[in-house]
């Protein structure tokens, strides 16, 4: 990428890439909306509660994978600490209600603000380093949080190794708390959130922020030399993806009704990474699909205690053999077969 085209790219208005004639484009949009709407409703009639629960878990993992994939794809940074924000959201929400006497909605808001402060501070420290050090530091920060909840001094708050049962009375953001435990309703909610977050991240990826992040990924020094601030965009990206992880964490605790130290564990972070790699890190569809696939695969193999082993195998196989993931591979295939316009 030459410097000229890069800056052109940054200053040009964001052009839409669906360049087909207008009726065809609006048809595609309408079909897409109907499809997305149907995804929220149709499975609740077709699938059993068990499958819906697995599916919802998959969607939450997909949300986490979306956050990891976005940072990998746009900024070239691999975060191995997704679990600390995901589990931390649940812990803060629970502590806010039981120890600080907040209403569920207020607890949600306070937890959100605390997480925002934490990731902003951590991000300010670690996005300045190189991508490899970033990866190591996110791993270390994640381990720090999972050690912190087990501290003897915090046992009264965090419940130590036992975790906490979360009792939610009343409504959360206007939704009755009972609905979150209902598999069908929760699937619809998780689906809607996943779609909205996916669209939002897709939009951010196409915005100026996305372009700047990709340019920094290619050559940070050149961007600094060209007069761009390389710190703030990366910090913004880091905070943004962690907010997505926090949303997934809130949804999880609302649905499950408990938090445990396992939700902060390294295995959650590596599962997330695998889900992102399976689906493919470019785009929003892949990670969500990867999360769903992982969830059902885990149900298949988890009983035999093979999940972690297969996680390791999947990381190696998908990076070495299928670096684009399933969705990326399929869209590459369809492009080669001429179903999709080049460059779309």
């Amino acid at each position: 990428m030459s410097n000229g085209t890069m800056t052109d790219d940054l200053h040009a208005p964001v052009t839409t890439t669906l360049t087909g004639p207008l009726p065809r484009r609006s048809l595609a949009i309408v079909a897409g909306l109907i499809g997305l709407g149907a995804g929220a409703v149709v499975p609740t009639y077709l699938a059993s509660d068990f499958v819906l629960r697995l599916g919802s878990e998959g969607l939450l993992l997909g949300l986490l994978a979306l956050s990891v994939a976005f940072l990998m794809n746009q900024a070239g940074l691999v975060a191995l600490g997704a679990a600390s924000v995901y589990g931390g959201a649940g812990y803060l929400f629970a502590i806010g209600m039981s120890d600080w006497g907040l209403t569920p909605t207020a607890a949600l808001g306070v937890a959100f603000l605390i997480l925002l402060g934490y990731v902003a501070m951590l991000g300010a420290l670690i996005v300045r380093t190189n991508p490899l050090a970033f990866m190591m530091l996110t791993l270390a920060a994640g381990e720090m949080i999972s050690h912190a909840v087990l501290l003897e001094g915090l046992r009264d708050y965090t419940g130590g190794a036992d975790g906490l049962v979360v009792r939610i009375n009343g409504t959360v953001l206007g939704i009755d708390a009972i609905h979150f435990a209902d598999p069908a309703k929760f699937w619809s909610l998780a689906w809607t959130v996943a779609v909205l977050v996916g669209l939002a991240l897709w939009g951010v990826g196409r915005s100026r922020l996305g372009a700047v992040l990709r340019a920094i990924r290619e050559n940070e020094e050149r961007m600094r030399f060209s007069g761009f601030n390389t710190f703030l965009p990366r910090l913004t990206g880091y905070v943004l993806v962690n907010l997505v992880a926090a949303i997934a964490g809130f949804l999880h605790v609302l649905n499950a009704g408990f938090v445990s130290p396992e939700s902060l564990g390294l295995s959650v972070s590596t599962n997330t990474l695998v889900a992102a790699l399976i689906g493919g890190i470019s785009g929003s569809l892949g990670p969500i699909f990867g999360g769903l696939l992982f969830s059902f695969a885990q149900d298949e193999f988890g009983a035999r205690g093979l999940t972690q082993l297969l996680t390791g195998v999947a990381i190696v196989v998908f990076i070495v053999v299928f670096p684009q993931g399933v969705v990326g591979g399929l869209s590459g295939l369809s492009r080669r077969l001429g179903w999709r316009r080049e460059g779309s």
Partner: protein
Amino acid sequence: MIALLIANSLALASLLIMLSSGLALIYGLRDVINFGHGAIYMLGAYLGYTIATVGGFWLALLLVPIMLALLGIAFEYLALRPLQRRSHIEVALVTLGLGIIVGQIIIYLYGGEARSVDAPKILSGSVTILHLSYPVYRLFLIVMGLGSCALLALWLRATPSGLYVRAVSQDPSVARMMGINADRLSLLVTSLSTAFAGIAGVLAGPYLSVDPGMDVVMIVNCLIIVVIGGTGSIGGAIVAALLFGFVQVAGSVFLPNLAALVPYILLMVVLLIAPGGIGRGRVLS
């Protein structure tokens, strides 16, 4: 009291030096951080446990490094070389995956409970130096750690291959132009690094416990050390390991409630002051 504190932190730092200098060496040559290093250490510890129960501790200390050096050669030929053209982040992720696989196979074979290894007779018990009684095994650890440190420095400073290693990690392309075979060096360095991890694993047996979580604990510690030391700087890694050992031991004495968090606090403080770590970067500049 102070003397005990320093001795204990030196004993812990000895293990950390062996592991983190191995990490820094591979990074210097290949620009790759081996996230599977913790799993190799764990493999060393479990192999050491098995061999020690059959043939004794000394046999384990001799055989395990050789076995793991062979593993390192396989790692170099099967993972690092084929992936040479891929991005460093991707290779790092592959090592993470390989580490998970090794760790899970060990847990599958040995089960979930912790094992303990007895120190050989000559190293058990304690000696009295300057009116202080101190476990012999820890003294042995300190000797091994400082000894390997000295050998490493001697190798890097005084031998041709050490000179080449320094040259490649300073500037790979210029070193290659000068006719240095970086692949052959990398083979040497990778096997050395895994062998050291094996020694550390065997030595950890009687000192710490041999348990399924040891790989994650150790890789996180080593990553913290490598970042504090300045990624790729061996001198920095050694200083950082000493600092880490001291902070950890002092933390467990003076702040027992927060001991688990002390290393992370150290990391955050260092990052705040010097984002690039305390070392000057690259190998032993």
